[in-house]
């Protein structure tokens, strides 16, 4: 042998293998990634893929047949109840494993393990918010409930049955691109996933921003900027409803005016927040208003638009129940859907269940804090945050009677001065058994069953709509909510005694609801649940306009068909613009407008108030409103601390409609007093300049300007669907914004043979290499719906059945 040439060529070979197998020199391990038998090519799913399978798992107690239809929706028929959850877990893992895992890692504050220290702040925030603590509390409750424990165990076993048989070449592509492996699933992970939904829906608060606003502005100004009442409110439970006398009497502490309402402390916290538009629409119309005489229920939850979709369609059928709907990969059950008797759906309640308390520690060791006239000991929880390629980060969080001290001297988020301590009291920390809600709803047969099921929903608070074949319709602003006195929780509260703590929970029989109202429909779109006669404090600001418009439309409709409901769900009418445009048209000084300005004014004037794809009016209105808002408020806010709450759009609109000499119209930096005409005209001039630039870029048409897209969870563009030609927007029923919108649209007609329609912007497969990855998106964009097929057991020869998976033990 020729030693030297051998050694050299062997060394070169080794160097090549090492380089191509790691991220030392290359950004990706191109050898393993491009190996046709291991890497991404294994994820390039054959267009004629065969999903037929015969699978045996000893954990099953009976047989389960799964029929996959031409949209890859599984129809699961199980002989034994818990087997259906096992197979649900298996299918969730088979088609959406990466997404399930990633969402629970993010929820648990473990993103740094995968992406490295850029995620450290996110992880610290989530751990300090007590996400894992909340999930652990939930888990205890879940596992104490024997039915739910069995359900969760089966689900977890199903997910693990898939993971345990996964080979490296079959890993979802994202694991290969990022470079990690899935972990086994557990009931805790399901609990974490549900807590993540709680965070997304009930984790929003503006306490620090509001506290800063209250400290900075005079009382008078503050009340004008943040009124307690919204004029255009059409509450979920109509005005005039009479509420029972409250059983929980709440009284503000004696010192509330001096210490709380007049507190002038400023804080600098800038938190990571869930999208405040995480809302939705739902409604149910009774048979008296429909063509068929049967009720129709509709729901479209509004969430971040992502691929893979948050939702996964399936049918679950056992001897005890038969249900179809949208499910969450990460948890068992049907979440928004229908069974053979009834249908149900949710919109976000938006109630404030996350409050902060300022803690006085004895010293920086944080071992003791002052509470009710004595020093109390804290409990420490050490969070071990693993970081990819770096040593672990240990974060020691102090727990008080209120909850974890989220912000302290060692963690400020984006705080500039870390000299105060704030504990967070979040309702999601309390033990709860959300899965029981879905377990009971999935098999509910009538209003009584719905009423029994719904009280199991504590957090997140949701407006749950219901309709059944008995012809009942109902809605409940459901949750377990703290009973608050007026203003409680709007601002940071003192944490040195119990006087500011939540004084009790609103009893379940005092939760606002409607059952078969005379007006023939129930609806919610995240507006305030009631008018101000409700005896508990509900907070200040809620989205108004979609609810207002939905009610206007439903009141006027009769002989309603499912197609009418499709048209309503995809309605692009901008009722906010209907109210605001007259202000602009009346107050733009039309003399001395240049040609561009004349053109844009004409566009604004002739616009039909629909945010349709090719309309230019919505763009002109949107930009003009934005400029007007800033001209009005920027001068007053110029010297405010950063993170000072800004007024809601509805506040500006309503204030100006009521009073054309609204105080804030004046520019405080000029000697003159500006008028509404001055501000509107100035805004219009600035807007025209911007509109002209946008027009030159070819983006004046609304859909181009709005640029709606559905992003892959990693934000990789090739895995995302960009530049979608869809109309609608924030104030429209079709609430499709830039990256947020109707993540599921469902319409169910409760005729004797149920007629149901639905669509979501995604696809049943989470594999970007599959033709089922995003095949629903175009239809969703166009406002089309698929027929939701509640398959019967004997329809196995139906031509819609494309593949069969047989499970047995």
């Amino acid at each position, binding site marked *: *042998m*020729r030693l030297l*040439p*051998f050694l050299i*060529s*062997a060394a*070169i*070979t080794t160097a*090549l*293998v090492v380089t*191509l*197998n790691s991220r030392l020199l290359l950004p*990706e391990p*191109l*050898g*393993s*990634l*491009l*190996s*046709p*038998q*291991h*890497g*991404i*090519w294994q*994820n*390039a*799913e*054959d*267009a*004629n893929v065969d999903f037929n399978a015969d699978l045996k798992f000893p954990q099953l107690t009976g047989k389960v047949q799964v029929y996959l239809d031409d949209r890859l929706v599984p129809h699961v028929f199980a002989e034994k109840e818990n087997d259906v959850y096992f197979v649900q877990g298996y299918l969730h893992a088979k088609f959406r494993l990466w997404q399930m895992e990633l969402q629970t890692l993010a929820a648990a504050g473990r993103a740094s393990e995968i992406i490295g220290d850029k995620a450290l702040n996110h992880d610290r925030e989530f751990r300090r918010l007590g996400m894992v603590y909340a999930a652990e509390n939930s888990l205890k409750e879940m596992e104490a409930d024997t039915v739910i424990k069995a359900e969760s165990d089966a689900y977890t076993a199903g997910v693990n049955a898939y993971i345990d048989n996964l080979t*490296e070449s079959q890993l979802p*592509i994202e694991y290969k*691109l990022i470079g990690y492996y899935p972990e086994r699933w557990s009931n805790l992970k399901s609990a974490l996933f549900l807590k993540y939904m709680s965070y997304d829906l009930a984790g929003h608060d503006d306490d620090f921003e509001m506290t800063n606003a209250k400290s900075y502005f005079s009382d008078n100004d503050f009340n004008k900027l943040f009124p307690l009442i919204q004029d255009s409110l059409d509450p979920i439970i109509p005005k005039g409803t009479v509420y029972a006398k409250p059983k929980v009497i709440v009284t503000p502490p004696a010192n509330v005016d001096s210490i709380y309402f007049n507190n002038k402390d400023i804080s600098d916290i800038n938190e990571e927040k869930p999208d405040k538009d995480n809302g939705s629409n739902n409604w149910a119309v009774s048979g008296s208003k429909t063509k068929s005489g049967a009720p129709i229920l509709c729901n479209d939850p509004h969430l971040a638009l992502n691929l893979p979709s948050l939702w996964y369609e399936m049918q679950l059928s056992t001897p005890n129940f038969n249900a179809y709907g949208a499910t969450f990969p990460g948890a068992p059950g049907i979440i928004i859907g229908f069974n053979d008797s009834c249908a149900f759906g949710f919109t976000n309640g938006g109630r404030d269940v996350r409050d902060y308390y300022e803690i006085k520690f004895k010293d920086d060791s944080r071992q003791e804090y002052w509470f009710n006239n004595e020093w109390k000991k804290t409990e420490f929880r050490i969070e071990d945050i693993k970081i990819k390629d770096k040593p672990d980060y240990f974060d020691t969080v102090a727990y008080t009677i209120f909850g974890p001290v989220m912000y302290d001297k060692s963690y400020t988020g984006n705080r500039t001065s870390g000299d105060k301590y704030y504990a967070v009291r979040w309702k999601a920390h309390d033990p709860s058994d959300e899965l029981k809600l879905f377990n009971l709803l999935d098999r509910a047969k009538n209003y009584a069953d719905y009423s029994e099921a719904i009280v199991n929903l504590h957090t997140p608070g949701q407006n749950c709509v219901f309709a059944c074949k008995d012809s009942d319709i109902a809605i409940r602003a459901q949750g377990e909510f703290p009973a608050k006195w007026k203003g409680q929780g709007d601002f940071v509260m003192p944490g040195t005694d119990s006087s500011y703590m939540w004084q009790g929970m609103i009893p379940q029989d005092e939760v606002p609801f409607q059952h078969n109202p005379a007006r023939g429909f129930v609806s919610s779109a995240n507006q305030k649940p009631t008018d101000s006669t409700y005896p508990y404090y509900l907070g200040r600001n809620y989205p108004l306009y979609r609810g207002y418009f939905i009610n206007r439309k439903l009141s006027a409709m009769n002989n309603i068909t499912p197609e009418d409901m499709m048209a309503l769900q995809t309605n692009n009418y901008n009722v906010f613009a209907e109210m605001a445009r007259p202000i602009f048209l009346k107050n733009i000084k039309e003399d001395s407008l240049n040609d561009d300005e004349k053109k844009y004014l004409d566009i604004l004037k002739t616009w039909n108030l629909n945010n349709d794809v090719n309309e230019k009016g919505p763009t002109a209105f949107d930009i003009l409103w934005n400029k007007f808002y800033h001209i009005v408020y920027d001068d007053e806010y110029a010297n405010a601390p950063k993170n000072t709450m800004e007024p809601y759009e509805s506040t500006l609109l309503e204030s100006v409609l009521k009073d054309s000499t609204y105080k804030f119209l004046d520019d405080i930096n000029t000697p003159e007093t500006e008028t509404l005409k001055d501000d509107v005209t100035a805004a219009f001039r600035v807007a025209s300049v911007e509109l002209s630039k946008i027009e030159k870029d070819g983006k004046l048409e609304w859909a181009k300007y709005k640029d709606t897209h559905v992003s892959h969870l990693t934000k*990789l*563009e*090739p*895995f995302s669907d960009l530049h979608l030609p869809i109309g609608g927007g924030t104030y429209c029923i079709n609430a499709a914004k830039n990256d947020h919108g109707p993540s599921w649209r469902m319409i169910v007609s409760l005729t004797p043979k149920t007629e149901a329609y639905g669509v979501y912007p995604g696809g049943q497969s989470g594999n*970007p*290499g*599959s*033709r089922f990855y995003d095949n629903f998106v175009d239809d969703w964009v166009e406002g089309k719906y698929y027929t939701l097929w509640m398959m019967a057991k004997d329809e196995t020869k139906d031509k819609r059945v494309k593949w069969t998976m047989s499970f047995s033990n």
Partner: protein
Amino acid sequence: MKFIISLILTALLSFVACIFLPWWSIAIAAFIVAAFVPQKPFVSFITGFIALFLLWGTIALVISNNNNDLLAHKVSVIILKIDSPVTLIIATAFIGALVASFAALAGSYLHKPKQQQAA
């Protein structure tokens, strides 16, 4: 003839190895075939190169074709920054070929040279 046989053996052994072992077992396969089928070093090098170029290139081509190039369009943008399934397939073939060629070369050096240089 020896060339064709070693070409086929390298491709076949690599394919079988990759069913059970990680991707770099192609280096072991190429090395072993070159060690057992004596050829001039340069010929072994070419054998390894062509065998894996064809093996990986063909498998990738067939897979991508059956997939209507759906994933190749996306992954080529992510990895190569250009939208070109063909380039991705060629890159795949080239990477396999590169590793196998040097492995085969190393294997060929296990033999004494065909002709001893006369003193």
